């Protein structure tokens, strides 16, 4: 579980996150949603420790991130899997080497064991027969899948996904969403997905937090989001034609 309490972050005196408090539970797809520039990515970067908050606390289980020593942070990072927006696969490594990369650093497994685990992770994300290919030989969807396989390679407790659907067609997007959701349940991970894709939100949003101009204005799930009691959220949701038609009672 990840608990965020009264988180504030500003850049050059401009507040970007204002008093954010939220809890992310294991076994669920927790989503951070909001328009571009609302502060979603800044919140995600604070959660994974790439940025330091001005005030407030982030707790992983019962451990406060701000009180962790460098060694503890390093250990925590090994229990975190991240899917970056552009997949961030290593250009110098093949598909299987990408998945084996974290194992090489943080396990004492033999090469055969690492290979076996990497192949298991690749099978989980339905990437079969591409072990020897380089990232630039893969489609966007395949790259995302390999990114997910790498993220779950060390059996993490936490999975962060930054806009997992960006640049993907609707069909592939749904497949990636379902994959994230299934893996979250199967491995009981605390998954946090940063997105503004309404299809994803409706498909896998077990727990949703809506950020508007740095403030967490609404929290709910994919069922209650279509009856929003917050005008800013209603404007955001109604930008999607299907959701607008549902809210306005045309379906």
């Amino acid at each position, binding site marked *: 579980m990840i608990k965020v309490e009264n988180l504030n972050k500003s850049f050059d005196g401009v507040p970007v996150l204002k008093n954010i408090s939220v809890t992310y539970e294991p076994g669920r797809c927790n989503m951070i949603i909001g328009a571009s520039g609302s502060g979603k990515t800044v919140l995600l970067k604070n959660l*994974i*420790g*790439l940025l330091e908050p001005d005030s407030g606390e982030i707790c992983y289980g019962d451990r406060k991130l701000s009180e962790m020593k460098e060694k503890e942070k*390093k*250990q925590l*990072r*090994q229990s*975190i899997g*991240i899917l*970056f*927006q*552009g997949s*961030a*696969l*290593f*250009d110098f490594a093949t598909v299987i080497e990408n998945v084996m*990369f*974290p194992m*090489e*650093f*943080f396990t004492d497994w033999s090469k055969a064991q690492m290979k076996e685990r990497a192949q298991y992770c690749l099978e989980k994300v339905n990437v079969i027969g591409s072990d020897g290919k380089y990232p630039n030989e893969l489609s966007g969807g395949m790259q995302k899948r390999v990114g997910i396989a790498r993220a779950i390679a060390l059996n993490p407790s936490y999975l962060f996904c930054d806009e997992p659907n960006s640049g993907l067609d609707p069909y592939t997007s749904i497949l990636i969403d379902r994959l994230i959701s299934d893996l979250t349940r199967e491995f009981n991970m605390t998954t946090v997905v940063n997105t503004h894709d309404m299809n994803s939100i409706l498909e896998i949003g077990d727990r949703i937090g809506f950020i508007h101009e740095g403030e967490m204005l609404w929290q709910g799930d994919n069922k209650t989001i279509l009856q929003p009691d917050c005008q800013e959220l209603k404007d955001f949701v109604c930008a999607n034609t299907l959701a607008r038609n549902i809210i306005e009672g045309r379906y």
Partner: protein
Amino acid sequence: MVKMFLESTGRYFLFLKAVFRRPEKWKIFWRQFINESDKLIISSVLLVGVISLFIGGVLVIQTASNLENPIIDKMYIGYMVRESLILEFCSTMVALILAGKMGSNISSEIGSMRITEQIDAMEMMGVNSAGFLVLPKITAATILSPFLMLLSLALGLVGGYVVVEATQIIPTASYITGIKAFYNGFYIFYSCFKMSLFCFMISSIAAFNGYYAKGGSLGVGRSSTKAIVVTSILILMADLIVTQLMLY
């Protein structure tokens, strides 16, 4: 301007501190070291070789055309070609050429990794990205570059020999005598030391610029250009200082 210079210098040394941390796994470090040796040093052999061959030949012609005085023994042409190659060309000029080739290679590779979040991904896994990516490059360039200097010297002398043989601008025997005359082993050490130092500067400054690249592909281009310009100037300054310290 002064503030910017001081900030960059401070950041460069902090970067080196991160680079020279103990590698997480020596096995991975050695594998990367071999890869980088191939990418940075072995792949430069052809370029350095071709340039050295031609420069050796040109040096013979230029020196011969400036030493037409019949009182001066022709063997001094061979001697001067050798000294020019050892003292300046094989270390400083080759390093300036490598600043372009090696520097842009390192800077653009690391810069691209930075802007495509590959470095962030490594950091988030708990891997010391500076150590993993940069340490093998710096060690390979620093330790193995003297071999490039020695290769350059050998091929420069061969280039001179080929020109002497082909044109008979001076008697071949005089050239051979000249390149063997007044040999000073310390000059070889001096040249190897300079080459190591310059290649350390090339690899570390290029990596530093790439590591902190920002602003998309244009930013990567800018960081490569900056790395080459800064390294070239610093090589010339270091050349002056090292020469003063070691030869006088």
